[in-house]
């Protein structure tokens, strides 16, 4: 599929038909100023014009107050968390992570002629995983000299404390899936140039509730509180079909297959 066709399809999704628009635009342009206010979709836009300076000032003050609140609140929250949760870098955190890393991998190795069946899925079939962590989706690949990389979106639907360890293997070659960028950790197995930057390829990803941006505006974040994105890659000659093992203190290993 050509890039032009892809762009037509992608932007066609955000261009709904507007059969009445031409008539409305003509009416809007031809109308006198008073009628135009009535015809305008943004009715507030004109009468608020004289107030914009004042409103802008009030908004700026509110933003300053809000920022101060965030800073102070963030410090209080950090202090509170420091008292109640192991922080990355602490002995407790490292011992928890070491315990997770010591768990054996339970990922299958498929024979070349064996089928790869994606699953298990969550209750409404919208994400991989039986929970409490779900692999929501992967992006289109970005190719490099080494192989191809994808962005994964995962989320949890429960309050999980401590680190969550993500490891993956190519199901046919048993090669370790590589992680780069944010959250990638563990052994450095190599380097690669991705989007112009030299990146270290790590063998695992560790995510933590502390690192997760709270996204509440888009599904699947609501009602799920924590969503992470990280980047993983396969070498060019691997199958690109992976088994994923998730380990955390709050639950035992979760294995699912992305085929």
């Amino acid at each position, binding site marked *: 599929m050509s890039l032009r066709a892809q762009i037509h399809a992608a932007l066609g999704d955000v261009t709904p038909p507007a059969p009445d628009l*031409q008539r409305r635009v003509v009416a809007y*342009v031809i109308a006198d100023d008073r009628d135009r206010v009535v015809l305008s979709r943004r009715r507030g836009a004109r009468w608020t014009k004289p107030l914009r300076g004042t409103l802008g000032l009030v908004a700026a003050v509110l933003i300053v107050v809000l920022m101060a609140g965030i800073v102070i609140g963030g410090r209080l929250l950090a202090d509170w968390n420091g008292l109640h949760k192991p922080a990355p870098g602490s002995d407790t955190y490292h011992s928890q992570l070491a315990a997770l890393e010591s768990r054996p991998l339970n990922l299958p190795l498929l024979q070349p002629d064996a089928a790869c069946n994606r699953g298990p899925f969550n209750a409404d079939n919208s994400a991989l995983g039986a929970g409490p962590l779900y692999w929501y*989706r992967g*992006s289109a690949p970005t190719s490099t000299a080494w192989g191809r990389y994808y962005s994964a979106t995962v989320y949890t639907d429960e309050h999980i404390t401590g680190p969550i360890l993500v490891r993956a293997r190519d199901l046919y070659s048993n090669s370790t899936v590589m992680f780069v960028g944010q959250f990638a950790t563990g052994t450095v197995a190599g380097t690669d140039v991705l*989007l112009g930057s030299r990146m270290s390829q790590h063998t695992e990803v560790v995510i933590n509730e502390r690192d997760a941006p709270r996204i509440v505006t888009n*599904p699947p974040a609501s009602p799920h509180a924590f969503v992470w994105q990280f980047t993983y890659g396969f070498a060019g000659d691997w199958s690109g079909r992976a088994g994923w093992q998730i380990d955390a203190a709050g639950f035992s290993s979760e294995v699912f297959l992305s085929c």
Partner: protein
Amino acid sequence: MSEQSFTDLLAPLVLPAYRLACAMLHDAPAAEDVVQEASLIAWRKLPSLRDRTRLRAWFLGIVANECRNARRRKWTGWLALPGSLSTMSSEEDVVIRADLRRALIRLSHEDRLVVVLYFYLDMPLADVAAVVGASADAARARLYRAIHRLRPDLDVQEALE
């Protein structure tokens, strides 16, 4: 000028303008607002346009400028992740389209504009250059750069074919 003059001159450009605004903003109601405001601006400035053969490029340039203003006005709307995260399913093309939209929205206004004009409105490079107010060579260079940023893995020459 009369309603008939407007209908004759600018009305045929409303739909391309709406497609351009939708592609730039990914927000149909905001796109309708933009087209409405741009049409009014164009209508008021029309007497100053000497070369009527440039009408389409001139009008789309106003629409593009209004898109930039709309995006500045509506800054809160862009804090959300661009485009809803589509469900992971066998509909891989849905995911790919959403990814492409996310990549487009991450481009700068200028880069996104040349991509949309060239690939979505199917305008020749000379017309794209007229809309963005640049030479054909500059428009081509901007398009190359935008494609590279959009899809680093893609051969630019192949993409343009």
